[in-house]
């Protein structure tokens, strides 16, 4: 080891082993050379896909010393992904909460007040919960009731709980609070009484507060006084304790979420979940080693309640959904279905399909030739996933980060709704670096453990489950234009109706003109004439009394899509001629085009026009609208070099209609804004 004094600027940490580099940097910190120490720690961190917790912690501490709370917070919260060590989590939690206070609530996706009502000590666990929440971008302002005071807090309307006015209340209770002895005579009455008691607390809290309640389920203890006999003994503690969990689950409405501690305890093993030592020494009902896990899960449920769950799982193909490389090994060469590896991939696909049934969107993002990538889905007998299970199928040779952006854009969801799964550490690393908003699941090398890796990813936590959820893929696919696999006419209508679409239509005004100009300038696919009018020309059209012009905004049960359609037509001698008709590609296949023609018919009637005419000018991109006029009953009147002219006999055929989209007309706002801007100009 070289002394830091000699080596400043000379020795590169990159040449040292990780351990040496950390020691070297530790000494730099002692000497007060924090900036250089950070560079050295970063060079170590860069060697790992997920930097080890102690490196994250050191970096967090250094950044705090440099008065950079944002970076300190970032590194402190990375401890959450780096392991489950209680000691490191405690240290990281201290730094993270300090840094978060410095940054203030505006720095976070959400800031919420949480009250923790508990029958055991939560002082050492709450910081871990705050850390896990900060990792998800949630700042929790926490009030903890005094040890064992939860009843008084709930029942007294003057209590500190209600004065704190939390938006979430966590009832962190323990099986001891059920007060169920080893054996109960009348187990039905005891369970009824307990369910009534806890349900009563919920009701009181919900009467006093506009809050969401989170409650721990009761853990069946690791000891069984009746042994195996207890499993069949009516009234044995191990049987009776399971009943309130089930009953409270039925009772819990949308304002109550359960955190299933019984499941978590089984997951880590009950001997590890609970430690009698820590109970007797410190009244901790959950052992220190299990506390990080409980914190992570509780934070995930809180995130789900706040609407921060992720929506879409983006999957690689080769060595992720099957073993081998389809482009090289061919259909018969990939490993799927037979042998331990092949079975593991089948199991993984089945797990993915159940996620999809539950409402998680699946998308493919693969570096492959598209035809190669599709072949297994079409022909391999062991494939469990079908092309119709995916909302988007992207197979090309572009960087994955670029494709992920495209997927988010096409589905009209944020990058922070995506989760990326890929067997290649290099791809994962690139996505982590380029798109930090996207969550990346670190798949293990052995495909046997893929299912587990994904089930340990917690941000697919749902808050409800309805028929809609299992249909979501279809809804989104339509939105993403993968409409090939549509079902019959009736279900298509159902689909449109279920979107509860609403269009807002108005003439061009100063407020909307910039967006209109943008669409006119860039829309390629649904664009009949591709005439790139300038903003000045568009403003002139808006003033021209012979010009019919309107924009369309679209809203549905998922989102407000904003301004998505533009129509410009000129009236002359009883004929209304379409100059420009275009639509944003994200709403193609939603019947918006029918609504736009219906609106045009209405305008034509208003102006006494009996005929509508239109032109299709082909480009390399707009083949999708080649036949659109024919679809709506226009007659072809001429064709020259691919350009077609069409006529609609409004007087004879009557106006076009669309019953799937409700229309609202806006006239006033635009004029007002124009008046306002004119006034400003003057």
């Amino acid at each position, binding site marked *: 080891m070289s002394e830091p004094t000699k080596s400043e600027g000379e020795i590169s940490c990159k040449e040292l082993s990780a351990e040496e580099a950390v020691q070297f940097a530790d000494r730099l910190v002692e000497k007060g050379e924090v900036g250089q120490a950070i560079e050295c720690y970063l060079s170590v961190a860069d060697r790992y896909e997920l930097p080890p917790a102690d490196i994250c912690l050191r970096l967090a*501490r250094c950044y705090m010393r440099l008065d950079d709370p944002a970076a300190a917070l970032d590194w402190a919260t990375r401890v959450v992904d780096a392991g489950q060590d209680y*000691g490191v989590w*405690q240290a990281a939690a*201290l730094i993270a909460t300090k840094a978060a206070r410095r940054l203030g609530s505006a720095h976070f996706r959400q800031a919420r007040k949480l009250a923790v009502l508990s029958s055991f000590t939560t*002082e*050492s666990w709450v910081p871990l919960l705050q850390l896990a929440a900060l990792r998800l971008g949630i700042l929790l302002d926490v009030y903890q009731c005094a040890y064992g005071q939860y009843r008084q807090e709930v029942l007294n309307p003057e209590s500190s709980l209600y004065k704190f006015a939390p938006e979430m209340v966590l009832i962190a209770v323990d099986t001891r609070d059920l007060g169920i002895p080893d054996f109960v005579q009348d187990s039905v009455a005891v369970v009824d009484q307990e369910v009534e008691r806890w349900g009563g607390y919920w009701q009181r809290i919900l009467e006093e507060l506009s809050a969401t309640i989170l409650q721990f389920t009761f853990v069946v203890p690791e000891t069984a006084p009746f042994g195996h006999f207890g499993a069949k003994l009516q009234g044995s503690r191990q049987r009776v304790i399971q009943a309130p969990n089930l009953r409270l689950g039925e009772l819990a409405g949308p304002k109550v979420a359960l955190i299933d501690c019984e499941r978590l305890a089984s997951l880590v093993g009950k001997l590890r979940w609970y430690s009698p030592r*820590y109970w007797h*020494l*410190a009244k901790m009902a959950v052992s*220190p080693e299990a506390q990080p896990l409980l914190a992570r899960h509780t934070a995930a449920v809180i995130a789900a309640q706040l609407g921060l769950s992720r929506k879409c799982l983006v999957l690689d193909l080769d060595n992720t959904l099957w073993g081998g490389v389809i482009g090289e090994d061919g259909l018969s060469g990939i490993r799927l279905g037979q042998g331990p590896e092949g079975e593991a991939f089948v199991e993984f696909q089945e797990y993915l399909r159940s996620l999809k049934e539950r409402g998680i969107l699946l998308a493919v993002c693969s570096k492959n030739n598209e035809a190669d990538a599709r072949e297994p889905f079409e022909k391999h007998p062991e494939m469990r996933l079908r092309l119709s299970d995916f909302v988007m199928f992207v197979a090309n040779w572009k960087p994955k980060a670029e494709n992920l952006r495209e997927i988010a854009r096409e589905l009209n969801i944020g990058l922070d709704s995506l989760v990326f799964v890929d067997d290649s550490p290099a791809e994962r690393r690139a996505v982590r670096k380029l798109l930090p908003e996207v969550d990346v699941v670190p798949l293990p090398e052995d495909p046997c453990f893929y299912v587990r890796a994904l089930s340990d990813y917690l941000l697919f936590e749902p808050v409800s489950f309805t028929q809609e959820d299992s249909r979501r893929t279809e809804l989104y696919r339509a939105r993403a234009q993968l409409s090939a696999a549509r079902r019959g006419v009736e279900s298509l209508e159902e689909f449109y109706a279920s979107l509860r679409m609403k269009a807002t239509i108005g003439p061009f005004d100063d407020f909307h003109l910039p967006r209109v100009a943008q669409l006119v300038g860039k829309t390629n696919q649904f664009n009949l004439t591709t005439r790139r009018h300038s903003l000045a020309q568009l403003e002139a059209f808006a003033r021209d009394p012979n010009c019919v012009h309107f924009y369309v905004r679209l809203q549905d049960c998922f989102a407000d899509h904003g301004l998505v359609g533009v129509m410009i037509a000129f009236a002359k001698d009883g004929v209304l001629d379409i100059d420009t008709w275009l639509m944003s590609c994200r709403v193609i296949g939603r019947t918006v085009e029918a609504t736009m023609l219906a609106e045009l018919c209405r305008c034509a009637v208003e102006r006494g026009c009996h005929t509508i005419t239109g032109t299709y000018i082909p480009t390399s991109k707009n083949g999708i609208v080649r036949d659109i006029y024919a679809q709506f009953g226009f007659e072809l009147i001429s064709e020259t070099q691919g350009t077609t002219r069409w006529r609609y006999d409004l007087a004879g055929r009557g106006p076009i209609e669309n019953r799937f989209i409700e229309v609202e007309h806006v006239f006033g706002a635009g004029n007002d804004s124009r008046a306002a801007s004119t006034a400003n100009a003057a």
Partner: protein
Amino acid sequence: MTVEQRLQQMLRELLDDDTVELGDDTVAQDVPGWDSYVHINLMYRIEQELGVPLPGNKIFEFKNFGELKRYVIEHLSARRTELS
């Protein structure tokens, strides 16, 4: 790193305070923030990271930091003898 430095480092992390200096006669009350939760967390880390068991109420029975340190050192050297 000596045992003393290691223990001091643990406590510094548990308090997020790099200025903490521990002497043999230091008691918890001398150090701001060193409450019973920090004490329990210190116990957890000594057991986990150094492999030194602190059974029962042991962690609360040391009179000062010096006693705790000597206990840990003795335990570690006894174990080393056992292994050799």
